[in-house]
């Protein structure tokens, strides 16, 4: 059962993630790594949208399942995009190695927060 402690620790982790990403931009005056935040905020969206579109009770038509799969595919795409984007920027010397590491770690923290928040409060809704 998620209590007040879960919320506090999750928001703390989220703040640390944002801190790392913003620091990776502001320290070096190059603001490309901010894209990572947008990527990870967008990442769970396809799953949410597609789970609304499909009807999980319907086993006769498998089209509902296909929509769910499309959502999962897009989510997988966006999650790897959040890691690949700083690496691409680093490889073409637009940002340096420290900014790359900070934005990857910060992005993973942000995404982990979003996912665990969803997991904790999905259980609440079911009962």
């Amino acid at each position, binding site marked *: 059962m998620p209590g007040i402690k879960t919320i506090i620790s999750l928001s703390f982790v989220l703040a640390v993630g944002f801190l790392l990403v913003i620091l990776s931009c502001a320290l070096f005056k190059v603001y490309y790594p901010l894209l990572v935040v947008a990527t990870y905020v967008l990442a769970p969206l396809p799953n949410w949208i597609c789970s609304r579109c499909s009807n999980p009770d319907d*086993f006769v038509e*498998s089209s509902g*399942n296909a929509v769910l*799969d499309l959502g*999962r*595919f*897009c*989510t*997988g*795409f*966006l*999650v*790897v*995009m959040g890691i*690949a*984007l700083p*690496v*691409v*920027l680093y*490889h*073409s*010397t*637009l940002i340096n190695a420290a900014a790359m590491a900070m934005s990857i770690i910060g992005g993973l923290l942000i995404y982990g927060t979003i996912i665990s928040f969803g997991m904790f409060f999905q259980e609440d809704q079911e009962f």
Partner: protein
Amino acid sequence: MEEDRLWKFRRPEWLNSAWVRNGGVYGAGALFSLAFYVLLDAAVWSKSAANGSDVHVTFVDWLPLIFSALGMLIINSVEKARLSADSFSYSGSGVAWKARVVLFLGFAALAGGMAGGVTVFVLKFVVPSVQWPALGMGVENVVANGLVGLSSVVLWISQNMEDEYSYNLAL
């Protein structure tokens, strides 16, 4: 069900769980993303200050990936259940035949994309004997097309698991 089996080895049991299936679809998306960003990396690197040579990524380098992605889209849009329909009741007015033709086109596009990647690599990078840091752009092209192929294989396998899974649930 048991007598219809063609292969000697059974599919391991853990492949039939919903977890593995969903993980496979996520993994396919991840592999496709990796393929796209490997090629994007080549394109960005080509215009960056790190590229000292005068070899640049142009639209020609993107063409194999476009074909691979198109092939993957076609392959995974086909309804798999129609493919194995041997009886008339399922395959109505030759749906299985149409599905096979469309699937063939998809696989042809995918294989054409891979062959195109190797072609670009050989014609643009190996034959003019481009040196290593710039040669990486050609290698990334081949790797990207291979990853798209791998991604569609993973997606195909995890979508074929679906039958057994939903069958178990329906019972």
